[in-house]
């Protein structure tokens, strides 16, 4: 830690963060453009028209033409892309003659399906996914790393073999199976859990009750991976020279493991955590569908199956944003955990 602090002053770190944020912005542009291509260019080959999706059951050609004009669906993809980006920052107006709809920034447009503003739908879904990911992440990091460390220190014992067998089983289980099993037992058979998700600030008990099962099942799957990784890393590190040196200095085993060995164990764990947390925030699609949680993942599934482009764009943008932020945070944390890492 000392090395990083002196080598990389606050200014270099700031410059690094700014450079990375620029890369994040580029990434978001690419994700948006790709989404446009998937939903505008590909379907055109297949011969469908986004205006029909918005119009729903109306088949009046004049009405569809009006919608096309108003939403700018007749414009080239790049123009539509530009209008979308502009809408995010300064808002935009949808106009067809006298029929003008004003959409203030940040404007994600209007759902094709419900004709509602997309932005409030996103702001409602994000806290759900955040709650799910934060709780599960806490459980799996603590549980997985602890199990891995104990297994490594007691290599070959009954504990080690049991823990690693359970971990391998955990890696091989799909969440939609364990999820349904847990619902069958705790919700249906025992009737401990009932009702729909409620936001944290409205009803804490209900929030907690509906999230407990998803937290535990999700954490179990991930903890398995972290336990295997931690064990492998720990075993490797315990053979390093500096551990022998630390022991030779007469340090207690607690300090050797807690302060010297653990620090290096965190680096690979963080790498995996960045990827997993990003992916989870970017769409806990399966967990949310299984447990019926109204988060970003379920919004994504609903909008994709309805080909509801404005909502899909919003969700994928936030998903990509979360992944980028998770990666950036992990890279910054490396320097905190490992003194040899230099930022810049």
């Amino acid at each position, binding site marked *: 830690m000392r090395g990083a602090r002196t080598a990389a002053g606050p200014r270099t770190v700031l410059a690094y963060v700014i450079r990375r944020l620029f890369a994040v912005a580029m990434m978001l542009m690419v994700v948006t453009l*790709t*989404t446009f291509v998937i939903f505008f260019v590909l379907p055109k080959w297949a011969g469908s028209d986004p205006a029909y999706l918005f119009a729903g059951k109306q088949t009046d050609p004049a009405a569809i033409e009006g919608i096309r004009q108003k939403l700018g669906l007749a414009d080239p993809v790049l123009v539509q892309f530009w209008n979308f980006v502009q809408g995010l920052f300064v808002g935009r107006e949808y106009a067809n003659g006298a029929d003008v709809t004003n959409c203030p920034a940040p404007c994600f447009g209007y759902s094709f399906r419900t004709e509602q503003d997309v932005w409030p739908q996103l702001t409602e879904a994000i806290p759900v996914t955040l709650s799910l990911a934060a709780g599960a992440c806490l459980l799996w990091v603590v549980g997985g790393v602890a199990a891995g460390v104990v297994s490594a220190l007691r290599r070959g014992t009954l504990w080690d073999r049991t823990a690693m067998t359970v971990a391998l089983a955990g890696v091989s*289980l*799909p969440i939609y199976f364990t999820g349904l099993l847990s619902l069958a037992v705790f919700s249906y058979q025992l009737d401990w859990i009932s009702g729909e998700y409620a936001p944290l600030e409205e009803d804490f008990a209900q929030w907690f009750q509906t999230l407990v099962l998803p937290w535990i099942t999700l954490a179990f799957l991930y903890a398995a991976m972290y336990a295997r990784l931690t064990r492998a890393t720990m075993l490797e590190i315990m053979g390093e020279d500096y551990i022998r040196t630390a022991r030779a200095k007469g340090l207690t085993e607690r300090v050797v493991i807690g302060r010297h060995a653990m620090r290096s164990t965190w680096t690979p764990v963080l790498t995996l955590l960045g990827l997993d947390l990003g992916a989870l925030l*970017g769409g806990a699609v399966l967990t949310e569908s*299984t447990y019926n949680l109204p988060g970003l993942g379920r919004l994504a599934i609903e909008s994709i199956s309805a080909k509801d482009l404005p909502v899909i764009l919003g969700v994928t943008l936030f998903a990509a944003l979360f992944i980028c932020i998770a*990666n950036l945070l992990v890279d910054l944390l490396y320097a905190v955990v490992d003194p040899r890492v230099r930022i810049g």
Partner: protein
Amino acid sequence: MTAPSHDTSVDTERSRTADVPSGSAGKPVEGRSLRQIAWSRLKRDKFALAGGVVVLFLVIVAVFAPVIVSLLGHPPDKFHQDEIDPLFGTPIGSFGGISSEHLLGVEPNNGRDVFSRIVYGARISLLVAFLAALVAVLFGTVLGIVAGYFGGWVDSVISRVMDMLLAFPQLLFIISLVSVLPNDLLGMTGSNVRIMILVGVIGFFGWPYVGRIVRGQTLSLREKEYVEAARSLGAGQRYVLFKELLPNLVAPITVYTTLMIPTNILTEAALSFLGAGVRPPTASWGQMLSTAVDTYESNPTFMIVPGVAIFITVLAFNLFGDGVRDALDPKGTR
């Protein structure tokens, strides 16, 4: 793939004395190829062998699905309404209607034979997983070698693309692509198109993982003396890439492929579960689970059977893959 002869010298140097059989004390020590060393290690790993046997069994089941079903089951699309309680839509027998006639019970509501659908589901699952892994490995290896060997702007471009794809919200894009692509491509129709689309899309998002590993390995291998020797003897670029570098990349690629297949199986099942996989009436495990969502409270058997099928398959591949990794690990002492 045959291991070239110069491999031997490199790998005996890595393999430690632990690998030399104890009975060979009197005989001169023979050089052994990477494959021989790996196989002798794998043979001692009981868990990996068990996984391998199950994998082999599943492959046989998938290949001979029509034969197995004609012997032990019923046609996978045949309705057995007489097995269904007309009032509740649940199977009449206990445990989801398991009987000597229907080994794993019948589907709720329409009474299709679960055993046959599980056997045919294995086909879809393994086919998609293997082909997608093949696509990913092919693209990943070629682009990874090219990036690592040539460096410069080629490397920059390929690495950037890989980084970007890895930062994509992959599952969302896989679902989007799979749901947007049409049902008839290149003159094909029906479930073949869906399988092709699944293979293409899952493989496309898988190649950067392979590419990253291959690129890293190539970067270190291209500085080795034997590559320099080949070049100074006048070997062309193609020769160096495919005859000198590629054989030494076989081990990491093999390990990654075996560990990628279970991930692909889970992805395919997830897509089917979300309704973005193969279309009914083609059977798939994920689709069966998603049907079970509506009925698991009254009929848990129909949920447990496909879930356990996925679990056993993925576990077997993971056990086998772990064993292969340990066996090919140059640092391994087992």
